[in-house]
């Protein structure tokens, strides 16, 4: 019985410390997890906006626009290549001299990762190994103030 009473006291201390640390820490987690970020059935991992921005600024990753529609008709992340699911073979053929299977790629769509994941799965089948999906897609990138260019980059 005394063990349970002591355990209760330690639990209360833990909750108080957790509340204090949550209030003062800058890197605190959101109270509720973002379902998209933990979408565990995706073929490849998600990358956060902050991390993707860091990769962009470092120039360490290539960005791939997977949104349907014609390239050049919409703003994109600067330097993006276009690989759409419906035209995957043709799009891949157009960029195959520039994108190699060992290159790290960040794929993005409009917002949700589901459509992007279809492209990621097919690229993985073609031997691309370092694939990430941009969390929140282009919409979140723009909202976060990420660099945007009005025209599609030509490889």
């Amino acid at each position, binding site marked *: 019985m005394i063990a349970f009473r002591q355990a209760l006291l330690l639990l209360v201390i*833990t909750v108080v410390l*957790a509340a204090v*640390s949550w209030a003062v820490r800058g*890197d*605190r987690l*959101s109270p*509720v*997890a973002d379902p998209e970020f*933990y979408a565990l059935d995706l073929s490849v991992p998600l990358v956060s906006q902050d991390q993707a921005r860091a990769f962009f600024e470092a120039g360490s990753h290539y960005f791939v626009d997977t949104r349907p529609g014609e390239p050049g008709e919409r703003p994109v992340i600067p330097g993006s290549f276009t690989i759409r699911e419906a035209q995957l073979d043709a799009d891949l053929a157009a960029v195959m001299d520039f994108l190699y299977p060992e290159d790290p790629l960040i794929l993005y769509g409009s917002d949700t990762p589901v459509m992007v994941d279809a492209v990621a799965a097919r690229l993985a089948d073609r031997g691309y190994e370092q694939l990430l999906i941009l969390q929140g897609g282009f919409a979140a990138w723009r909202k976060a103030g990420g660099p945007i260019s009005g025209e599609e980059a030509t490889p």
Partner: protein
Amino acid sequence: MTGARSGLQATVLLLVRLIVGAVFIYASLDKLAEPAAFAQSVANYRLVPLPLLHLFAWLLPILEAVCGVALILGWQRRGAALLIAAMTVMFIIAIAAALIRDLDISCGCFHTAGGHAVGRDLLLRDIALLVAALVPLLAARDPWSLDALRNRSH
């Protein structure tokens, strides 16, 4: 003879408290430093419901640290040992579930990035830890502890 035996028991109890407490404090450090990475490690097990994931990932390392410190100091010793035993049982269940479902994940036990892959050796390690946690939980007297010091002063 009885004095020597009780002295040996107290020494063993102190050693177990220090080792188990240190293990839990060490286990909490990287999780406290990298809460987002630890939340991802927890999510990989696919056991904690998403609405509770961040709450769990925020509380668990603090609970590990609190219990580790309490056990080392011998303060609220039985409560700390009870919580450590409960956490260890939870870890055993999580690892066993991951093994049964053939999940290829890192355990997230001590390091949130990389770290040890989930395997049977981890299961054995946690069972050993559970047995060790039962020692301070079940021991009747612990002369080298804050609890005993407080009782003597009253």
